[in-house]
């Protein structure tokens, strides 16, 4: 049921963002702290086995928010550890997220070279 996938992606993804919004509005955490918090919480929830069910239910709704980045890191590290032991614990997380990080560096650099920031009205 593809349409249900989109429904859950919307609902869960939106709900995770609402948690972030509540933190910003009520505790005045800066976006930088929110991002750090979310990625770390994602790793921890994954380690506790609590995030996997959310990914199965919501797909991109759980992987696109930054907690999903944490999920990919945590899952990668755990799988690495199971397969290759201590070395895998070190390499697993970065291996699993290499695509996103490399893309961020490349596209980040290219955009910076091409575009110039504009004043806000």
């Amino acid at each position, binding site marked *: 049921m593809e349409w249900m996938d989109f429904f859950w992606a919307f609902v869960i993804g939106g709900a995770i963002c609402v948690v972030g919004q509540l933190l910003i509005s009520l505790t005045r955490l800066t*976006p930088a702290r929110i991002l750090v918090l979310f990625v770390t919480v994602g790793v921890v929830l994954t380690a506790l086995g609590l995030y996997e069910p959310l990914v199965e239910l919501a797909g991109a709704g759980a992987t696109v928010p930054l907690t999903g980045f944490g999920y990919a890191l945590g899952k990668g590290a755990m799988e690495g550890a199971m397969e290759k032991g201590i070395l895998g614990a070190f390499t697993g997380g970065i291996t699993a997220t290499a695509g996103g990080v490399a893309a961020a560096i490349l596209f980040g650099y290219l955009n910076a070279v091409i575009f110039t*920031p*504009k*004043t806000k*009205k």
Partner: protein
Amino acid sequence: MQKRLGKQTVVFEAPPRIAAGGTIVGDVEGEGPLGSYFDLVLQDDTWGEESWEKAERKMFEHAVRRALARCAMQPPQIDLLLGGDLLNQIITANFAARELSIPFLGLYGACSTMAESLLLGSMLIDGGYAERVACAATSHFCTAERQYRFPLEMGGQTTPTAQRTVTGAGASLLVAPGYAGNAQFEHIFATGGTIGRVVDLGITDASNMGAAMAPAAADTLAAHLREKECSVTDYDVIVTGDLGRFGSEMFAELCRDKGIDLANRHQDCGNMIFSPAQKVDCGGSGCGCSAVTLNAYLLKRMEQGDFTRMLFMATGALMSPTAGMQGDSIPGIAHAVVLERR
């Protein structure tokens, strides 16, 4: 004559005159309620330069030259330049002073710089150490954002207490009372002032600068009234620099606590320069805010005779990203200058 009253307040024996003002602002300020008063409104806030920092120093230099031109003067005829801005090492003022090559004393008083420079300039003239002093201050939205806050293209929301840094440069030319040459203003004299103390009531929120500065403004006003033995009603208007809407509210509150009734005489440059319809949250801020509002608008109103006694009290939030990250609160300061129409 006693030139010093109490600890903080000074009066001038031979009050210096403000002979002219020069202002230049960015397009958002130009669209505001005071738009038509500014000498020059930039459509492009890089002003053809490679960076905003370079544009800001060009604005500083330009504002000084505008003020001088009104008196048909050239930089070599000026004894002293006093000024500052918000950037680290006050690079705007330093580099503009390099171009103007007027003897220069750089000031840092955050957004209180315009009042600080007028106060010091008047004291130097009254003391006989200078005849003609140019006073100037600038700020630029983009340079301030990147130094104090986030990159411009970063997505996020401002909080309702935030204020928008004014892109603008303002300069005043102070002359000794005997001056008889060309001038924009004939009647405006700086007759005294009060040097503020640094006051900090522990506000740590960098997007609530109005609340951080309000205690300093109230402290300086109270010291002024006490030492000069005058009252709020002796002034037609008491103008603060950039408390903004919320800061003004807290200022009134603090004054009430001190037994001072502002009697509807309080105005704030941060509230005047933008209209609430412009999305600027609590109003304007920055050195340029009070500098352009004074030189473009308030002095003209005063010259016309709309008010005869004004207490110009620019307020500064002496915040630093480093101190903020180390958990320090934001100290505030306010300096007051008495301007009279004679």
